[in-house]
């Protein structure tokens, strides 16, 4: 990508994933719904600003399938960074960043259906030194900028005015992917895909395939004459609910304090 037309460079990041109930069957593998939405919005946005879409995936040769789908839908260039599946999010992001470093607009799905944590877009924004709009529910296209609505805690919404360079990750329901035309599908089947080696040594991710549980804490045997008392003291049932402290600290100190407390409580 040349930096000359930096403001119109649109990239979409797509991940080839297995379905949860068919964990190793490539027949059922493909994009997550959120990636479908990201692809559609990337295409619409590129049309809006007169740019072109480059689709990037990080994965094995079979992952070409998602790139071909993107080409069939209107992407003009496809790049696969050749790795096995299951690489850590930070490394996926730096690998993508090395290919997309001139991109003005990077679209991603907010998380993939294979236990995705939604962290790649965040890492990517950091690596590209771009602004980020993550977990976006809806977008409005302005001339040269995007108004993005994102979900925040407590059912509230945050409205962002997004300027380039930016990484935007969207939820699956934001847009419905267009149907590829027959001609484009046929052309995409034999279109070239650039395969590049990752720019760094890729580490595999520590895969969390189960819901998070705090590690066990060793406790002294409870005292008490009655079994019920011992159970009560073990479970702290009947006592006041979870411990809480209120402190006023600088952000950095507050973060350190929270981490320390979580450690003490056994959550980390």
């Amino acid at each position, binding site marked *: 990508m040349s930096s000359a037309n930096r403001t119109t460079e649109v990239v979409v990041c797509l991940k080839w994933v297995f379905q949860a109930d068919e964990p190793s069957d490539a*027949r*059922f593998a493909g994009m997550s719904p959120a990636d479908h939405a990201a692809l559609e919005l990337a295409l619409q946005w590129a049309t809006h600003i007169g740019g072109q879409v480059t689709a990037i995936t990080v994965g094995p040769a079979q992952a070409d399938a998602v790139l071909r789908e993107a080409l069939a839908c209107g992407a003009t260039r496809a790049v696969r960074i050749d790795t096995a599946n299951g690489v850590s999010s930070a490394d996926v992001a730096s690998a993508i960043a090395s290919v997309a470093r001139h991109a003005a607009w990077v679209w991603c799905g907010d998380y993939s259906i294979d236990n995705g944590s939604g962290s790649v877009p965040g890492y990517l924004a950091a690596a590209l030194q771009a602004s980020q709009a993550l977990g976006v529910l809806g977008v409005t296209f302005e001339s040269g900028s995007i108004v993005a609505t994102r979900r925040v805690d407590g059912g509230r919404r945050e409205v962002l005015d997004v300027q380039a360079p930016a990484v935007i990750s969207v939820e699956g329901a934001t847009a419905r992917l267009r149907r*590829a*035309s*027959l001609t*484009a*599908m*046929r052309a995409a*089947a034999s279109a070239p895909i650039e395969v590049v080696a990752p720019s760094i040594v890729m580490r595999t991710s520590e895969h969390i395939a189960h819901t998070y549980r705090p590690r066990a804490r060793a406790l002294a045997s409870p005292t008490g004459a009655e079994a019920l008392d011992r159970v009560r003291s073990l479970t702290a049932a009947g006592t006041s609910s979870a411990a809480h402290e209120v402190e006023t600290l600088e952000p950095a100190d507050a973060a350190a304090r929270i981490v320390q407390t979580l450690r003490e409580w056994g959550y980390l």
Partner: protein
Amino acid sequence: MNENVNENVNDCDVIVVGGGPAGSCAAIVAARAGLSVVLLERGPFPGSKNMYGGVVYPRILDELIPNWWEEAPIQRWVTRRSTMLLTDTQALTVDFRTEAWGKAPYNGATAYRPDFDHWLASHAEAAGAQLLTSTTVTGLLRDDKGVVVGVTTDRPDGDLRARVVIACDGVNSFLAKQAGLYTHTDVKHFTLGVKETLALPKEVIDERFGVRGREGVDIEIIGCTGGVNGGGFVYTNLDTVAVGVVLKIAKLAGQALRPEQIIATLKAHPAIAPLIEGGEVKEYSAHVIPEAGLAMMPKMISDGMLVAGDAAALCLAAGIWLEGVNFAMASGMYAGEAAVEAVRAGDVSAQGLRGYQRRLSDTFVLQDHRKLRRAPELVLSDRVQHLYPQMVANVVERMFRIDNPQPKPGLRRILKQERKRAGIRRRDLIRDGLTGFRSYG
């Protein structure tokens, strides 16, 4: 239909509609001959939504895929084949097993269609055919003379032109109908197949069905489909058992029974229940079968178009035989060959494509159908369905019942008594016997 079709522009030589066994074989043959072939399938991958009872006879692949048995995704090799006559409380089984069917080149095999069809289509792709999935063909493109020159699809910009269209779109082919090749269709000609797939551990299946390793069992059943004419089957996969019934649609519509109730009755039969006890239902599926053979077959050739497989009603459903996949593969293959011949000769008119008819007539595809043309009707007749099983089961029950101090009765006498008791006229019995002998003999 598009009237302004430019006859000179072809997107490819051959369009094959449907990635089932017929379509993939047609595509393999045409692509291997060097033609440009597009294979269109509406599902997300070939076979994804296809169902059947469960036994394929792939010997027809010997030519197309030598040593197919080394790579085909099969579940078990059928080495034991039983035919069962059931009444509500009795079962008469003819049970055959042979080691020969458990060794190359094998005979029948159980296989899942999403595996088998996907595998076959991968050979079409390897041969150079372009497979386009999630694409439904919505109609035929014809020129102003009515010659088929392509298809329309449900995709934007979705028209596709070719010199020959091979319709392999399965039972009730709307392409064959749109081309005017079916002169009449009659609900009498169709049966409804419904099937449950039950999960059981492999060792349990091996033990209950008396098999080991990759050996499998095929049980065909007559009787026990309620008042509805039809038949049943039980097939073993590696760790599932398929139990199903094939029901005459016209009869089914007249009864207050639902197909799943009929399966439930079959599953509860004392001869079947112990085989499948504890099996957890993994899947329930249903599909229409073109049952009437020759009586319902359409014209299979028109200008620029061929019809193969179930789309041409080539499924053989004759009681103890339910074969559709092998007829589909063979007819697809022959359609592919005829298309190649016609494209090379530069004549894709019905006349140029007539090599298809010749191939069908010269091989088992139409010869088996001709020989068994009366079989579907016989097997589904009220007598075979409701009266004979009862009579035969009673005869056997009396033959083997020891009523001492009574002496053993003679077989002739039992036969006569039981025939009368079942209300069967001797004339009908002889006539059905002859029809059966001519068909199966």
